[in-house]
């Protein structure tokens, strides 16, 4: 029985990876915590919903339309609103992204109403048997997507020239600018890419569960736990962190009871911050004396 919980958690963790990759990418490159991450996820789900109600497409296929739109939105937001604020420090960015989250949340409510919506597809109602345990098909799909996303981003950042520019800008923006890298452009593109990754995560959420205008914050909190555990800014950290959090959630729910699940997860978050704030793979974090 315990083994089944492990398997459940493993694949559930895949879903958690997809929602957190965008967040960790943005932090890794721009040292910015995007408090609007939850709204990006839900916004993408709403977009997918709009597309699938007008065009008879599978929600995952609707990503073909959703992804470019999300990229443009992400890029625009970064260049117009956030870039000028980067030099003012992390707190300013926190407040700015928070303001964006407020606006997005109310916009969703105004445009789509307050009901819980869901993306429908036949594979959301089926399960796959793995080692004797039945796992929701959508979780397995999410797991595969998670691996693809992380590996894909890793390859982009290490093999492509643009990826090298990104890493240079992340390492030292001033030096990168001095060798001719257009840092504002890099930031814009990365935020756009993060929006795209969140689009995948959001669509998977919409397929796995329902979503409403107020769903953003809970997914934001979960993403936080994942990236803090894995290491803020680390892609592999997001992958491992997501899976670990999925396993922890399932195991504690079965042992202690689901009503304490959040308590344990967030106590765990605080514990990690105290013992090892850089998480599993993050860069060493300077601490006050």
């Amino acid at each position, binding site marked *: 029985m315990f083994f089944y919980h492990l398997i459940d958690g493993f694949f559930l963790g895949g879903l958690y990876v997809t929602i957190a990759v965008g967040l960790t990418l943005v932090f890794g490159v721009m040292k910015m*915590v995007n408090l609007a991450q939850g709204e990006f996820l839900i916004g993408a789900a709403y977009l997918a919903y709009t597309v699938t109600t007008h065009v008879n497409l599978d929600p995952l296929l609707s990503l073909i339309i959703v992804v470019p739109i999300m990229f443009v939105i992400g890029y625009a937001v970064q260049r117009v*609103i956030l*870039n*000028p*604020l*980067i*030099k*003012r*420090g*992390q*707190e*300013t960015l*926190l*407040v*700015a992204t*928070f*303001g*964006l*989250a*407020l*606006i997005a*949340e*109310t*916009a969703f*409510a*105004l445009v789509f109403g307050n009901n819980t919506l869901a993306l429908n597809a036949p594979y959301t109602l089926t399960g796959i048997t793995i080692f004797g345990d039945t796992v929701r098909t959508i979780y397995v799909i999410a797991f595969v997507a998670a691996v693809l996303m992380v590996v894909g981003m890793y390859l982009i950042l290490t093999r492509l020239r643009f990826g090298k520019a990104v890493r240079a800008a992340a390492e030292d*923006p*001033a030096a990168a*600018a001095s060798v001719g890298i257009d*840092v*504002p452009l890099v*930031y814009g593109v990365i935020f756009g890419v993060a929006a795209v990754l969140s689009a995948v995560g959001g669509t998977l959420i919409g397929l796995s569960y329902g979503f409403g205008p107020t769903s953003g*914050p809970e997914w934001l*909190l979960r993403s*936080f*736990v994942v990236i*803090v555990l894995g290491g*803020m800014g680390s892609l592999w950290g997001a992958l491992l962190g997501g899976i670990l959090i999925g396993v922890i959630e399932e195991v504690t729910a079965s042992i202690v009871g689901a*009503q*304490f699940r*959040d*308590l344990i997860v*967030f*106590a765990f*978050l*605080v514990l990690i*911050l*105290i013992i090892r*704030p850089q998480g599993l793979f993050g860069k060493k*974090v*300077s*601490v*006050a*004396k």
Partner: protein
Amino acid sequence: MTLSDRQPESIPPESMEQPAKRTWFEMMRALKRSGRWIKWGALVLLLLLALLGPTYLSVFELTLAFMLFNYMTLAQSWNLLGGYGGQFSLGHSLFVGAGSYTVAVLLLHTGMPLYLTLLVSGGVASGLAAIAALLLMRLREVYFTIGSLGLSVAALTWMINWSYTGASSGLSLPPTAALDYTALYYLSLALLVLTMVCIVLLVRSPFGLRLMAIRDDEEAAAELGVYSLPVKLTTFTISAFFVGVAGGLIVLNNLSIEPNSAFSLNWVVTMIIMTVIGGIATSTGPLIGAVVVFTLQQALQGYQSWSTLLTGVLLILIIRLAPGGIWNMLINGFQRLIEISLKLRPANQQSTSQREEDTVENIV
């Protein structure tokens, strides 16, 4: 205060040669000299106005004033830690809830006099803050923020399940705890005045200088012998105290409590919004911010979503265009006006009293 405050007053030679301008100038100079008296006079006047509130305010307006004073206290308390201290906390809802529940539990299970329970609620909040500080203080910037958020959410989950405090059903205060609105008004006013006095004195004291030094450059401060941990711990505790008492007042107003609204993230969100819009790290900023946001919320009562939307837009506009908040915007505007009228500076030149930008780099 900004560096520009230390500039010496200059007397342009031209103005001495025109009699009308000279009178005007001498008037302004007298005004400047008596600045301190005017400031104190204004404060006393306002306090008198507030104390006489119940005589000219309707019962409904008293309830509004109660909420406004509470919001001002909350915003200013957050400002102490977040603005002056530079520790951006997302966990302050924990103290609101802790204060509220302390008062509720004490009134229900002990015979403690009501006013004492308020003090104890502040104490409990401070105690929790001390623990949180010891847990989180070594964390910098966003790590501290996320940690504080984690504590607050963990506390919420705990309270939903804790049967001693009624779990998710919460608690109802005994009928004897119902104070009339005038009493509540004075309590919240007293708390606000106390909070303002404490925080203003604290900030202007050597402790305050140490706090801001740590905020501006922690390493440099450490090299000068200013160790951050005790300072941050004290600040966190003081900030939480006032928030806890405010939480106690809130439950006295509502007469019932349940965990989701007591520990709701809305509290800390409102504190931050009010402080940032009004003017972070200023003593008047949170008050202005509270007035602006509260008026907006009340005016748009029937259109909740629009009110939140506008607040979000306002937040982004402020952070982009006037990061010092509305207060700094007004101060600068007023100063420019005076300077122009005194011909101390041509109209098209930038005023030096603008809030300083943080870093030298300007690559983005």
